């Protein structure tokens, strides 16, 4: 699989981060005062975090995980309930629920990782179904299908003497973007380190990896734990963003959406899930005016991409580039 380190652009990394930060700072202004587009932006960032974390498990460690919606749901509900019922402060609740999701991820991995391929897929799906059912049926805790309403945004913070309120969606966007960038940097560093090599080895050929002395079970658990924790982190921002929390937002079918984002963007690359999340969050919104056909187009897109361009959009770009720069021999 592509080793991005070997194809580094001539721009040093810090320039990239500067550009990204600049883009993030500027984008909310580009959409003007539109509250609708601001919400979409926040959705995009949350989906980016979900796609990146799923990619860690699926793209880099090769585990077909169809239950990511479960971790997202744990993050969302745990945060809300800790704040509303236990009186925790938002930031502590966020950390706690992220860790809770991580622990659940570890547990799931602990017992699911001796399964492979399709078994793991079904087991992870079963996990997502069970979690959804728990959210639906544990009325006393979660209010079940009635949902939880009127959820407040994270409490205002004072930075450099200025009070920043998070019911302002622009500020909320900046907040989640910062976390998303941190997550990206964190994952990128892990994957460039020997840990990344190990995970890739597990993905490529578990048997050989084991013969090299790699404790494959441990590393799979690691992936699931980290991936779940990140999903939980994204989940903690979700309720205050939407204002209401219902179990059906975390049904199994959402897992397929995140899967699609990873695949369509390009799994096993860092930028792939980011692109996939952006494209697949925007596509239904842009197509909304077409009305009923949008979900259909969504399905068509996923099928076509996986059939003809399995490396996703990233693969598409790479082949475009290798066609343009005719002197370079084909990459990958």
């Amino acid at each position, binding site marked *: 699989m592509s080793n991005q380190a070997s194809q580094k652009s001539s721009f040093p990394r810090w320039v990239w981060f500067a550009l990204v930060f600049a883009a993030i700072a500027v984008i909310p202004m580009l959409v003007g005062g539109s509250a609708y587009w601001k919400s979409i932006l926040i959705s995009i960032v949350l989906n980016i975090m979900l796609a990146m974390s799923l990619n860690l498990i699926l793209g880099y460690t090769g585990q077909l995980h169809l239950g990511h919606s479960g971790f997202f749901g744990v993050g969302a509900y745990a945060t809300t309930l800790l704040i509303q019922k236990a009186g925790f402060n938002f930031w502590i609740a966020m950390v706690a629920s992220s860790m809770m999701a991580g622990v659940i991820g570890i547990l799931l991995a602990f*017992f699911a990782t001796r399964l492979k391929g*399709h078994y793991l897929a079904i087991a992870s799906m*079963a996990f997502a179904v*069970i979690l959804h059912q728990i959210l639906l049926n544990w009325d006393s805790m979660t209010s079940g299908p009635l949902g939880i309403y009127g959820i407040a945004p994270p409490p205002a913070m004072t930075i450099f003497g200025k009070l920043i309120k998070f019911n302002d969606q622009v500020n909320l966007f900046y907040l989640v973007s910062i976390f998303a960038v941190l997550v990206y940097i964190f994952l990128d560093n892990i994957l460039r380190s020997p840990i990344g090599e190990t995970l890739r080895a597990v993905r490529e050929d578990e048997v050989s990896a084991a013969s090299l002395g790699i404790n494959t079970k441990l590393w799979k658990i690691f992936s699931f734990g980290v991936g779940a924790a990140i999903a939980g982190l994204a989940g903690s921002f979700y309720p205050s963003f939407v204002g209401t929390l219902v179990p059906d937002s975390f049904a199994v079918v959402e897992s397929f959406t995140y*899967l699609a984002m990873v695949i369509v963007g390009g799994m096993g690359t860092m930028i792939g899930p980011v692109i996939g999340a952006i494209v697949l969050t925007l596509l239904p919104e842009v197509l909304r005016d077409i009305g009923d056909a949008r979900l259909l187009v969504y399905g068509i897109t996923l099928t076509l991409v996986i059939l003809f361009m399995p490396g996703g959009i990233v693969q598409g770009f790479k082949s475009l580039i290798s066609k343009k720069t005719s002197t370079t021999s084909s990459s990958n």
Partner: protein
Amino acid sequence: MVDIASLIIQQSINGIVMGCLYVMVALGLTLIYGVMNQINFAHADFVTLGAFASYFFVKWMGGGYLISILVAFLAGGVLGYIINLTIFAPLRDRGDELRPLIATIGASILLENGSLLFFGPVPYQYDTPYADAIRIGKIFFTEQSLLVVLVASAAIAALYAFMKFTFTGKALRAISQDRETAGLMGINQAFLIMLTIVIASAMAGMAGAMLGPILVLTPFAGASVVVKAFAIVIIGGFGNMEGTIIAGLLVGLIEAFTTQYLGSGVIDLVVFGLLLVMLLVRPTGLIAEKKEENV
């Protein structure tokens, strides 16, 4: 209060009827997995489309209900052929087991929403001529459920005989047990694999025709059944026919009794909880016959 004995018998009957339907859907999945090592997520939609095919045959062409089951069977087969042609066959040799799965997820979304556009969201009223109830003492069952049990048993028996006694059937079992050796024996794998998925999808279509009058008929009808079918396939043992049959009936019974004593809301919890327990304790399923390289 109704006496407990009748109650238990009644719920058992209810459970077995639904179980038969689940088995018909799950057998297709298990067959596909056994021979091709693939999962077809669009299996659910074959069930739905089978139901619609049967419905329109009866409503528009005025055909008989029993014949419409055959129509649905054929419709399912055709769908299976198409999906093999477009997804499974082209991707088979590349050895990637994830891609076809994901492609079938895409196909499933496509079929569901295409059906939604085409048929609309309003549930179709599918009345079967066999709706009357037969009463024996305190026990009742409808003619439709009797039909379900009969057709399902016949289909299962036919499939079983096919697999055990015909040459093609034995070839399929050979492929499912050891693909490489089977290849060496000069069996035309591509054809047989196509046949497998056609048969499996045809069974799904037929199940749809029988489910049509029972389910609320919308483009999402099949989805409600197939998630449980996946659970059944694993509980029974992937690729294992006897296991699937037992597991299917078991799940049907679980549903009926859970509804009686706990409430239908927790059915999914119970079934999937059982699934996870099975995976933990005995991942090869209730009856482990197939040689599992996976686990």
